[in-house]
């Protein structure tokens, strides 16, 4: 039963597992193609990660309360559908995006209602919302694609102080989220609630508003992320936002967030998770990997990431 503890510097390394892995992946692809590690391409990767990061940030909050929100993709779609219709009807893009955020607010609000008031299991409630949202979106768009006015694309590719707009948005979201989590009473209470809801209630935490806030926050992030994606795509297809729920959860968990609540961080955790996913895809394209091998390679890399993380959390003494 005697177990030798890993040597100090191995421990140090494991402590930074997520960061290390992203670095490793980047370095690895970098070695294989001199095209990969160019500042330009790194920016591209960040750009592709922008929307997922935003959505995953909201998701992280929900996961921290031991909940889950499967409806983010659907919310994105409904929002995009409405925004798209408005855009085609000639409304100003700002208005369209505002509408989109409103949708996010509404979606999050409904989820909050279902989970806190009606006491539904988050999984099943948001699953239902996923179906409803998808259906609603298809109905609004009549499952037709919409090509948006170029203003959207201009926004998506606009630079402020040499940094692309989407990165500003994502950066702001992450920063705020991180501050909320680590520096505000609300953030700490979210962690407490996720760790032991009953105790949180006993301690006088107003758990219902707290839970509600988390789902609304997630809805907002979903809409915002959708907005960013919209300005990057310049169009809305019937599959807009599909799979986002899984990508968001994956990013968060890759970043070390526990699905059982109480543990996790937006930065660097979730952010790195999202970036990792995009970096892999970009690398594979640049290396002209066999299309059939994409999922295989991606899977292996994610697997290693998760493995390292679990080694870190379990092989190391508290």
């Amino acid at each position, binding site marked *: *039963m*005697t*177990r030798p503890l890993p040597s100090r510097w191995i421990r140090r390394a494991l402590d930074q597992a997520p960061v290390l892995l992203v670095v490793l992946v980047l370095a690895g692809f970098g070695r294989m193609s001199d095209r990969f590690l160019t500042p330009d391409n790194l920016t591209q990767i960040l750009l592709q990660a922008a929307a997922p990061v935003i959505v995953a940030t909201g998701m992280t909050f929900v996961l921290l309360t031991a909940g889950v929100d499967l409806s983010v993709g659907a919310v994105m779609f409904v929002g995009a559908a409405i925004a798209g219709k408005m855009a085609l009807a000639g409304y100003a893009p700002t208005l369209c995006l505002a509408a989109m955020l409103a949708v996010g607010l509404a979606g999050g609000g409904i989820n909050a209602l279902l989970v806190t008031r009606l006491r539904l299991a988050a999984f099943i409630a948001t699953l239902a919302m996923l179906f409803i949202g998808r259906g609603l979106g298809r109905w609004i768009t009549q499952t037709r694609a919409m090509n948006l006015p170029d203003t959207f694309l201009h926004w998506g590719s606009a630079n402020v102080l040499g940094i692309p707009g989407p990165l500003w948005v994502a950066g702001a979201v992450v920063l705020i989220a991180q*501050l909320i989590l680590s*520096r*505000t*009473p*609300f953030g*700490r*209470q979210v*962690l*407490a609630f996720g*760790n*032991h809801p*009953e*105790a*949180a*209630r*006993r*301690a*006088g*935490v*107003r758990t219902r508003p707290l839970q509600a806030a988390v789902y609304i926050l997630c809805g907002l992030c979903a809409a915002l992320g959708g907005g960013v994606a919209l300005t990057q795509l310049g169009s809305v297809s019937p599959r807009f936002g599909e799979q986002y729920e899984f990508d968001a959860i994956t990013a968060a968990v890759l970043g070390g967030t526990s699905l059982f609540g*109480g*543990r996790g961080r937006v930065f660097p955790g979730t952010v790195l998770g999202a970036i990792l996913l995009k970096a892999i895809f970009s690398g594979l394209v640049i290396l002209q990997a066999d299309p059939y091998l994409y999922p295989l390679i991606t899977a292996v890399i994610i697997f290693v990431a998760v493995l390292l993380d679990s080694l870190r959390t379990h092989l190391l003494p*508290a």
Partner: protein
Amino acid sequence: MKGDTTPPTSGGRETRPPAVSFEDIEKGFFGVPVLKRVRFSAQAGRITGLVGENGAGKSTLMNLLGGNLQPDSGQLRVNGSPYAPRGSGDARAAGIAFVHQELNLFPNLSIAENLFLTEFPRAAGGLPWIDRRKLRDRARHLLDQVDLAHDPDTPVERLPPGERQLLEIARALGAQAHLLLLDEPTTSLSVRECARLFDLMHRLRTRGIAMVYISHALGDVLNHCDDLVILRDGEVVGRGPAAEFTQERLVSLMVGRELNQLYPVRTPPPVPADSRPREPLLDVRGITQPGRVRDISFRLAPGEILGVAGLMGAGRSELARILFGLDPHASGEIRVEGRPLEGGPRRRIREGLAFLTEDRRHEGLCLEASVADNLALVTLGQHARTPVRWLDLPGIGTAVARIRDALQVSTRVTDAQPVRTLSGGNQQKVVLGKWLLSEPRILILDEPTRGIDVGARFEIYQWIHRLADRGSGILVISSEIEELIGLCDRILVMRQGELSGEFPRGEFNREQILAAALHTSTS
């Protein structure tokens, strides 16, 4: 234990309304009555002791005050005015603070954050940020009051149970309440911390704060409380100034029958400490694990009940966990009847070991599972018939029923009820029960009777004796020296991870044992 039981001369006590009063409170759970027309009050500047059997309804009363539960009927009053809390927020607003029976801490947060979860000091300038420095200072101030040396930023998961208990108390103090309710706050504290706690309570009393103190340690209750309320099956069966009660009277009121001694006499007479049996049942040699225990060696003879005394943090639990294969040890060896002990809990259970953990909620029970499932868990294998390990459900049923009666698990509890809904003491009985069922040859008990009422304790001691008489060896870790003295054939004392003393039955002496546990030559 020094405790001035003279209540402060509060002159106009009659004129002032009681700090809290229960008026004909009734509460039931899904048709099962738990509190029946409970009526009593607690005065400001006095400590009211609340005692009763496991499942009598004590914690339920607290939960009513805390707003975690609502009474079915009856009236609560705080300082004379009606009080109907809808949530723990209301309780705080009314100036009521709690030390709940079960720890309500968040291991993933720091000590400071746990202390001020709901009233973090805000940074200046209306921003929602937490003022970290202020937070740390206030936390330190509270920690000093309970003698916790830790840095306020330490994550709570690093603290052992005892220290967590102190933290819980510190949190209650932080609330600046005028009414403080302590539900078995001493269960994982050892003598030193207990004394410290009672000092605190006396100081608070002189500040005119009302306290309700729930405990099964009747000695403490009689020493430190001014008024007493005795609860049985949800009814108040006795109340009045503590001076009017003796331990015997308390017990008979609680249990509803005479209980002339607290510890059963051992028959046949215990093995004399000096005579070492040829083949010790358990032979521990030089167990060492850096930072936990150092060079622990002792032997456990068949039929022997061996106690381990020590202060919190002495490493007793660690020792137990190492013996059961839960924690690693750097050096030393453990032999059972000469054979070296290997592997994890499963292997060791096969070797006849059993281990009652001190952390019942996280390691002892499946809270959501039923009473029956919990009781049966360890011994399921014995009721499984090969090839497909088919379960003999009736057999399991009878075994469960047997142990339930033996341990007097509250009759209001059904087998199918989730353990979560049991009273603290009844939960402890369930953990104990599942191990007793396995009739182990070596039984390791870490704080076996924490939260268990006198009546049930007696039964449990008898079970332990019966096991010993059948030749099992028993290792009892307890923070109650009286318990060890009353139960054991021999007592080892641990201090800072080392053995610091050994007392055979003949030479039991509370003061010496305490000295051995406290005395610090090093550091």
